[in-house]
């Protein structure tokens, strides 16, 4: 990537596409559209860091929230469980966990890249409605998305091998699975003993050199950290450089978007933003694509209200911000006799999807997957949060336990469904503002009882698996109502009915013909955790159709 040769545009130049956000979706869209020959400006509120800026400092990343919350007071977020409560500022950790930088959360994610399955797209038709929820079918199917999942595999770089119950794929994986860790070997052992079927994980991390990027060196500072090797397949590593090198794309970082404006014909015509010094500019474009993530995107649309759009831009349905879904990550820990050394290498090398489907016999809706990993992301975090509940918390006993457990512990983490509820949503906080004067993002969230039941079910499975693997000691995290989420889904959902959705099946907003929305907000159902692969496939598909509309003159 040659940043010195990056094409730049004047804000007054009407480019073909202005894209808000450079994460998993925005980065992919920027790449596809600029390679197709369109002029693209990407506005990213965070800084343009690259792999040479990344390090392994646990204190910086986890405790000082280098990528995630940012300095206290600059980006306050508020949280409440329902409308009946007052939302309070939640700082450590904020309710919405996302990275503010070029590449977005794809820089710091776990890189679990599971495809959704056929059932995720038409589950409502199969199971029937669930009263009191927004449980709905997607307007597209796995078949529609499959070619784009495959594009993600080959263009972004995904390592793995097909599992026993995976949906069909039109091409194999481009890269073999990453080498198994001890947690994976034990996971396999436990699964086998129970008659369950484990499989190598599907990871957006290069297991060997690919597309001019080196393979993973197993440094262990993966989740929550940027990859110094560019082996983790963030859009920063895999898509942004391609976009820039096309000669058609400018990535304008430190640009905080405050408003999308429309003209007298109701078409989006410019995106207003503040530069690093707080000076306001407006980038003109023939079309606008919003990919700011499932929390920032609805906030921006709600902020962009006008006389024509009194409830916020593209919000005639009233669904902008609604149906927020987090997924749940129920987990158990196990300690074994010999050292696993899970502080090395990537988080996940084995997964299990036997419990993917919802089973009405269980008495609640929901399903999920399990993975083998280690939640002790760093030694300090481990010492505070990853010890057995009955271990001493200070003194010689605590010290001895630390020394005994650290290298011998692993986590089995579940990833479960969240139901779409209108009462779970993103709104503008009436009281607090961020450093730029934007209304703070207010999260209202309370898990559906079936979500908690599913989480408890998967907690039991995760524990069962560790015990079957021979753990000498195991314990589980209690299932409690969420106060935060890293998966920000559902808040500008796709659908054919403009009364029930925000965008159509091509991510075109129902209200504004040249305004597209494509990111985690597009998801209709939550999937079984690991949404980024699907978000990115949607982005590749959206790019295909949007490019076609542009060529046909039907934007």
């Amino acid at each position, binding site marked *: 990537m040659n940043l010195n040769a990056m094409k730049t545009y004047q804000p007054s130049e009407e480019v073909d596409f202005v894209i808000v956000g450079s994460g998993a979706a925005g980065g992919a869209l920027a790449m596809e559209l600029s390679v197709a020959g369109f002029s693209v400006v990407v506005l990213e509120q965070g800084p343009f860091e690259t792999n040479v800026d990344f390090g*392994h*400092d*646990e*204190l*910086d990343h986890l*405790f*000082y*929230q*280098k990528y*995630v919350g940012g*300095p206290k*007071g600059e980006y306050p977020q508020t949280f409440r469980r329902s409308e009946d409560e007052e939302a309070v500022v*939640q*700082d*450590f*950790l904020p309710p919405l*966990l996302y990275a503010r930088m070029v590449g977005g959360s794809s820089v710091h994610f776990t890189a679990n890249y599971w495809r959704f399955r056929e059932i995720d797209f038409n589950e409502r038709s199969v199971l029937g409605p669930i009263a009191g929820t927004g449980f709905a079918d997607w307007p597209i199917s796995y078949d529609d998305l499959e070619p784009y999942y495959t594009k993600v595999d080959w263009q972004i770089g995904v390592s793995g091998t097909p599992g026993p119950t995976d949906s069909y794929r039109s091409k194999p994986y481009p890269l073999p699975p990453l080498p*198994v*860790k*001890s947690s994976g*070997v*034990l996971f396999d052992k436990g699964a086998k003993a129970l008659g369950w079927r484990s499989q190598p994980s599907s990871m957006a991390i290069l297991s060997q050199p690919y597309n001019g990027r080196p393979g993973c060196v*197993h*440094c262990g500072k993966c*989740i*929550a950290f940027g990859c*110094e090797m560019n082996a983790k397949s963030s859009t920063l590593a895999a898509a942004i450089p391609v976009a820039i090198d096309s000669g058609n794309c400018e990535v304008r970082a430190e640009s905080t978007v405050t408003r999308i404006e429309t003209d007298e014909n109701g078409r989006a015509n410019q995106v207003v933003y503040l530069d690093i010094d707080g000076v306001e500019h407006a980038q003109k474009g023939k079309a606008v694509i919003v990919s700011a993530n499932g929390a920032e995107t609805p906030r921006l649309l709600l902020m962009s209200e006008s006389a024509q759009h009194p409830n916020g831009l593209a919000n005639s349905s009233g669904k902008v911000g609604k149906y927020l879904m987090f997924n749940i990550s129920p*987990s158990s820990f196990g300690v*074994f006799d*010999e*050292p*696993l*050394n*899970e*502080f*090395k*290498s990537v988080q996940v090398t084995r997964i299990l999807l036997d419990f993917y489907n919802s089973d009405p016999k269980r008495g609640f809706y929901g399903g999920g997957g399990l993975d083998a990993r280690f939640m002790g*992301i760093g*030694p*300090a975090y*481990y*010492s*505070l*949060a990853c010890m057995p509940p009955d271990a001493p*918390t*200070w003194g*010689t006993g605590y*010290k*001895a336990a*630390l*020394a005994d457990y*650290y*290298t011998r512990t692993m986590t089995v983490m579940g990833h479960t469904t969240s139901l779409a509820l209108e009462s779970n949503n993103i709104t503008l906080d009436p009281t607090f503002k961020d450093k730029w004067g934007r209304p703070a993002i207010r999260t209202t969230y309370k898990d559906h009882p079936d979500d908690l039941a599913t989480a408890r079910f998967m907690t039991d499975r995760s524990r069962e698996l560790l015990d079957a693997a021979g753990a000498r000691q195991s314990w589980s*995290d209690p299932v*409690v109502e*969420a*106060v*935060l*989420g*890293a998966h920000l889904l559902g808040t500008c959902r796709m659908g054919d009915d403009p009364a029930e959705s925000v965008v159509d099946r091509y991510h075109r907003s129902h209200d504004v013909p040249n305004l597209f929305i494509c990111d985690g907000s597009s998801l209709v159902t939550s999937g079984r955790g690991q949404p980024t692969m699907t978000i990115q496939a949607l982005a590749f598909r959206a790019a295909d159709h949007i490019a076609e509309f542009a060529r046909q003159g039907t934007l």
Partner: protein
Amino acid sequence: MKDRRQFLREGSSALGALMTVNAIGATSLFSISCARREAGAAFVNLSDAEAADLEAVAEQIIPATDTPGAREAGVIYFIDTAVTEGMPFAGMLPFLKDGVKELAGKLQSSGSTAMRFADAEHDVQISLLTEMEPTPFFGMVSTLTKIGFFADPKYGGNKDKVGWELIGFDDRHAWQPPFGYYDGQLMAEERDES
């Protein structure tokens, strides 16, 4: 990132409420604390007496055994810098100062001849800290001690990586399989079979 709920709930709400973050200032100011530790320099935010008491508390949280504890690891230098105005844990400083006074008060009532916590006998220290366990002060010192013991040595604690050595963490930048015992064993079995 997703599983910090437990940590959040158990005593870190005080941590969260009081953390102010200034990431840019943090790194540069912290790198100075390592140098101060090496030079045995004076403390910035704590009196010598307060530092001695807090160091004694930290030493009970992670004591020296056959391997170094918090005192030898230089944790007090981490703590002193971490509570500097504008730094991430600055809000904890008043609690630390008040807590030290409370310890002195309890010491007096206990009938011990020691005037300060740092001078009290081991059993007396343990007894007082056990009493203080539910307090925000104890939670804060405990949290700061653990973070300081395991953070990068440049932050003042974890001197000579003694914290990492204790638990078997190695901060090498690159690894190759086998990573641990169980995948190593599997690798050996597969090699024997072929």
